[in-house]
């Protein structure tokens, strides 16, 4: 029924606050045929009986045909299953490594969760190393668990990395924009000079370029992309590209 989508349509692209409510009063039609549509509530929206409540502040977004969610800005990361993150190894205790992922608890990483690792062939991981892994268990009741292999047993780009380079922190919204399939920011950055980039969904980014100066330039460009429109960003990148040549 159009009533459901109409309630949301006015507010798409507007800033909503927690506590805002969408209530649907289906019109009482004489013939008794009420067509109900299905809508999918994404992050930030919650159903409460006959209404939909907003539980995070942000902008309401819509994706065809019927998905709605709240796009919110956040810097604190909450571990979720299936997300790939950059972690820092803080301790080795018995068979597991304790890894700091920026959440409320440290995650545990078993030493067998690397490609080609067996009980005799232990992986070469030291305290202070950077690891890129995925969460297998991540909920509010248990300690999160990381693995550096996928379900087939292959590394697939995960594992220990980062002999040089620089690790810094960005907001979660910007990281999601960087990881989008056709990210403009990454495309524009590639034109300036080549560099290696690892992006973790916990807001951590690792960069390595040919010289230290180039690494620092990429770092400060990424940090400044947070609050710029695409126009401002492109002019800035053009100025940097001309200046460095």
């Amino acid at each position, binding site marked *: 029924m159009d009533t459901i989508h109409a309630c949301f349509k006015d507010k798409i692209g507007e800033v909503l606050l927690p506590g805002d409510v969408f209530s649907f009063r289906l019109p009482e039609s004489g013939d008794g045929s009420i067509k109900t549509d299905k809508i999918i509530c994404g992050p930030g929206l*919650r*159903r*409460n*009986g006959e209404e939909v409540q907003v539980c995070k502040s942000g902008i309401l977004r819509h994706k065809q045909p019927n998905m709605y969610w709240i796009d919110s800005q956040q810097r604190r990361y909450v571990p979720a299953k299936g997300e790939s993150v950059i972690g820092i190894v803080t301790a080795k205790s018995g068979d597991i490594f304790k890894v700091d992922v920026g959440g409320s608890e440290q995650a545990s990483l078993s030493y067998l969760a690397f490609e080609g690792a067996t009980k005799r062939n232990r992986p070469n991981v030291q305290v202070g190393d950077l690891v890129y892994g995925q969460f297998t*268990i991540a*909920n509010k*009741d*248990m300690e999160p*668990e990381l693995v550096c292999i996928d379900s087939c047993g292959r590394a697939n780009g995960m594992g220990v990395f980062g002999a040089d380079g620089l690790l810094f922190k960005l907001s979660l919204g910007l990281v999601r924009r960087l990881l989008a399939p056709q990210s403009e920011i990454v495309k524009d950055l590639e034109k300036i000079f080549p560099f290696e980039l690892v992006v973790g969904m916990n807001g951590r980014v690792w960069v390595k370029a040919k010289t230290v100066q180039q690494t620092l330039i990429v770092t400060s460009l990424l940090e400044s992309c947070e609050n710029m429109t695409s126009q401002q960003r492109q002019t800035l990148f053009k100025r940097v590209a001309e200046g460095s040549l």
Partner: protein
Amino acid sequence: NSHMYVCERLCSTEDCIPGTGTYLRHGYIFASLTGYVLRKNEGEELPVISVVRETETQLLPDVGAIVTCKVTSINPRFAKVHILYVGSTPLKDRFRGTIRKEDVRATEKDKVETYKSFRPGDIVLAKVISLGDVQSNYLLTTAENELGVVVAHSEAGAQMVPISWCEMQCPRTHAKEFRKVARVQPEYLQA
């Protein structure tokens, strides 16, 4: 039944036979516990005098008893619970119990995920399989159809309704959550 203090003299050996909580000294019976005095005629010549802490004896969970417990914390390998009731009698102290991952279900034991069977705060019906050592807790199992989660609250805070042996639904948000649900016999369900 009067209240006794420790080392209080109860009576002489000629009047009663000493029972639990008492000791003999110099021909007199003394109390060794603080509690209530019980005099029982057990068919011998003299009554047996004993001192007990409480008038009712504590019911302890025994192997094979069905207990009602509340989940306190979960772990990928086991769930820790507090035992609240043994059968239908409430316990005065909370005993601690453990439900291991292998004891949650009877079939497909290696595919069990603790997070999809129990959550902290759930009320669970379980059976005692072992009393454990000095250090460890009671070992419990839910590997039967009638055992498992009976009362659970959803993430929104409402009490959930069971829809199958492995799912429960929240009436407010209509979100489904996984639990190992107990099949309660119809005569125990109240309308």
